[in-house]
């Protein structure tokens, strides 16, 4: 049990930032609970927000990375030599999920009576079906966390699975729609909720049993790729590709040959060619696929909403455009990491290397985004000429965001990459309502947003250049990963 508790402790403290988040979230949850118990004048929304924020913060690393952490831990060679190593690690993981679910149930405990009182105060009655019991919220949370862990455990096993998961995430509405067709929610029999809530524990149990029986457990594929980057970069895979790169080193950054970039290039270009034309074709391909899926295969009802009125087959893929920004940042980061080896080999100075990398990043991301926009924006204009101006402002703002994220990626040498990226995305989401196409959109607000992001490019570029001029080329070190499964 001692080992299992240590595993739980590690799970909630593995990420350095998490320790701070744990402290903050603990304070927030305590504040919520205290206020609820004392019956202070704080409204239920305030209490709920504080509690939920606390929950999000505490669950951030263990919740989202738990499955990956589990795979990492189980694949360590040394675990084979620890007495009851796997069993204790899995027991610890089960306790961690239970703790997460308990933490998740806390805000419900806090908010539920407040909601009931508030509704009753307004002369209304809370529908008993809507009242979420603490036990049920605990079970739902247990299910969600367990299934998420199992899913991330599974997808971290192979690069292909990781890519499929990314695509599934992007196409989550499609998956939901398909599932609804296969098993309509209305058709579910009474009492099926209990059965559904058993899925998580059952899945988890199956995983535990498999882990205990398995001869070996594969290490994380993603880390394997990154480790390849570190260890194999100077000599890489084949003599022909090596000589080609060395010859071309001063003038090109070949994104096709490097294992980590190849992963994203496959996802990014889709056609796998890695060519400049392929980048544009991939962007257009994603947009066209979205239009086809949402327009022909799974047609959503036409929305009459005030925000971006019109058919969902156009709206949904277009709303994915800003997602390219995150990928732009990743491409920037990977090229930046790649560039340090070019510096060692090609003898370029830092400034010219930065310009070279910047050029390629902007070219690749710009072409892909442009490819997507080239399909979606004209279609949108044909379909809804009345909102033409706001469609253009939406496209322009997205472009500005993508450029910002390129520079976020290029300054990628530490945790600041994540913080900076999250900051820019949060700002974009905050300003999103002002740029969404709608008939009565305010041009001033939209232009203000575009200007804001266009101006943001300059400090971000300055920051990235500054980092490049001072960075320690070996600062970005990967943790040592298990070479062979236990």
């Amino acid at each position, binding site marked *: 049990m*001692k*080992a299992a*508790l*240590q*595993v739980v402790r*590690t799970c909630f*403290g*593995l*990420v*350095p930032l998490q320790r701070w988040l744990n402290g903050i979230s603990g304070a927030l949850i305590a504040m919520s609970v205290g206020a609820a118990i004392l019956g202070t004048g704080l409204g239920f929304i305030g209490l709920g927000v504080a509690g939920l924020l606390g929950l999000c913060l505490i669950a951030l690393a263990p919740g989202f990375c738990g499955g990956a952490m589990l795979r990492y831990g189980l694949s*360590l*060679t*040394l675990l*084979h*030599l*620890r*007495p*009851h*190593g796997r069993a*204790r690690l899995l027991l610890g993981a089960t306790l961690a999920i239970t703790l997460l679910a308990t933490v998740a149930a806390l805000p419900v405990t806090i908010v539920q009576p407040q909601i009931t009182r508030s509704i009753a105060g307004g002369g209304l009655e809370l529908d008993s079906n809507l009242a979420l019991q603490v036990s049920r919220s605990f079970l739902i949370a247990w299910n969600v966390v367990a299934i998420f862990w199992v899913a991330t455990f599974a997808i971290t096993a192979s690069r292909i699975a990781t890519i499929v998961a990314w695509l599934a995430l992007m196409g989550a509405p499609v998956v939901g729609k398909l599932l609804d067709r296969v098993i309509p929610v209305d058709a579910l029999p009474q009492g099926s909720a209990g059965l559904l809530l058993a899925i998580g524990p059952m899945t988890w149990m199956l995983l535990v049993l498999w882990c205990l029986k398995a*001869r*070996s457990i594969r290490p994380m594929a993603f880390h394997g790729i990154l480790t390849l980057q570190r260890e194999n970069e100077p000599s890489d895979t084949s003599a022909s590709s090596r000589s080609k790169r060395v010859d071309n080193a001063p003038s090109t950054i070949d994104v096709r040959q490097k294992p980590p970039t190849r992963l994203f290039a496959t996802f990014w270009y889709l056609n796998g060619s890695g060519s400049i034309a392929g980048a544009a074709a991939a962007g257009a391909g994603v947009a066209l696929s979205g239009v086809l899926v949402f327009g022909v295969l799974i047609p959503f009802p036409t929305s009459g909403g005030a925000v971006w009125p019109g058919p969902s087959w156009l709206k949904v893929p277009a709303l994915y455009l800003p997602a390219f920004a995150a990928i732009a940042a990743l491409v920037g980061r990977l090229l930046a990491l790649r560039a340090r080896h070019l510096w060692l080999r090609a003898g370029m100075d830092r400034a010219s290397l930065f310009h070279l990398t910047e050029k390629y990043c902007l070219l690749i991301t710009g072409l892909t985004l442009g490819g997507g926009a080239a399909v979606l924006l004209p279609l949108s204009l044909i379909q809804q000429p009345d909102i033409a101006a706001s469609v253009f402002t939406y496209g322009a703002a997205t472009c500005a965001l993508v450029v910002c994220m390129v520079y976020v990626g290029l300054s990628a040498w530490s945790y600041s990459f994540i913080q900076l990226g999250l900051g820019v995305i949060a700002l974009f989401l905050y300003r999103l309502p002002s740029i969404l196409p709608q008939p009565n959109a305010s041009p001033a607000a939209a232009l203000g947003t575009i200007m804001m992001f266009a101006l943001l490019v300059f400090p971000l570029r300055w920051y990235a250049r500054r980092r490049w001029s001072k960075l320690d080329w070996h600062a970005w*070190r990967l*943790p*040592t990963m*298990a*070479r*062979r499964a*236990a």
Partner: protein
Amino acid sequence: MSQAAVSIDNLGKSFGKHEVLRGISTEVRAGDVVGVIGKNGAGKTTLLEAMLGFSPPSSGHARIFGEDSLAMSAAVKARIGFVPQQDELLPTLTGERQLALTASFYPRWDRELIKRLAQEWEVPLQRRASALSGGERQKLSTLLALGNRPDLLVLDEPVAALDPLARRKFLQALLDIAVDRERAVIFSSHIVSDLERVANRIWVVKDGRMLWDGETDNLKQSVRRLHIQAREPLPAELGLANVLSARRGTDGRTATVTVRDLADADIDTAATRLGAHIEREGLGLEDIFLEIHA
């Protein structure tokens, strides 16, 4: 006679068509300090890992304290300490946390020993593993392997990243641990002089085979370099058995031959037959290693 800590019988390991280990059989008992030497890719790490059951062997089997290494009980596992060539420290955890986590898996954990060694070896336990130097990481990995006071300690190139001073301290500690004759230590290293100083047994691994398995002193006595000096040009075939390497002088009258397990009488016979004077030279472990791989 005490139970063997390690018993290997006809162990073989292949990765696809590539045969890395072939027909290795040996035993290690308490009190043995075994040094494993071999070129890069000779199969040292594979041997240690297959021996400990990290991956199933292609043929034969390995037993640790009488149990199959692929299915060791918790009690046997608690008696083993292993330092892998590439450490498996969790980069975001401090040394103290790594020690606490590892300690929680063992029924006995010698905190005093770890505290003392950490001070002696100057391991900054408050720092995260990611902030440690290569040598400090290696020392921390070794601490993690020593805390359970293992009866069998296996170290795969434990001193590769250590400076000479740290190496000396480390080897001294290793000797202290092994000197009580209750523990068995197996360690591989490319620094042959270290092995010579510490190991009382040597395994020489070449091309996946165990070329030598025996006492260090016996190995040093069995391998000799012969300096042959004849009045007439030497024949093409010198007629010596167990030759490890041979080099002829430009004049054809001299030759330097390294031989193994060749009796003095045989050398005298060869000297008479060749009409030459043969001078015998004993070799250090490093020279023996070079001659074996020449």
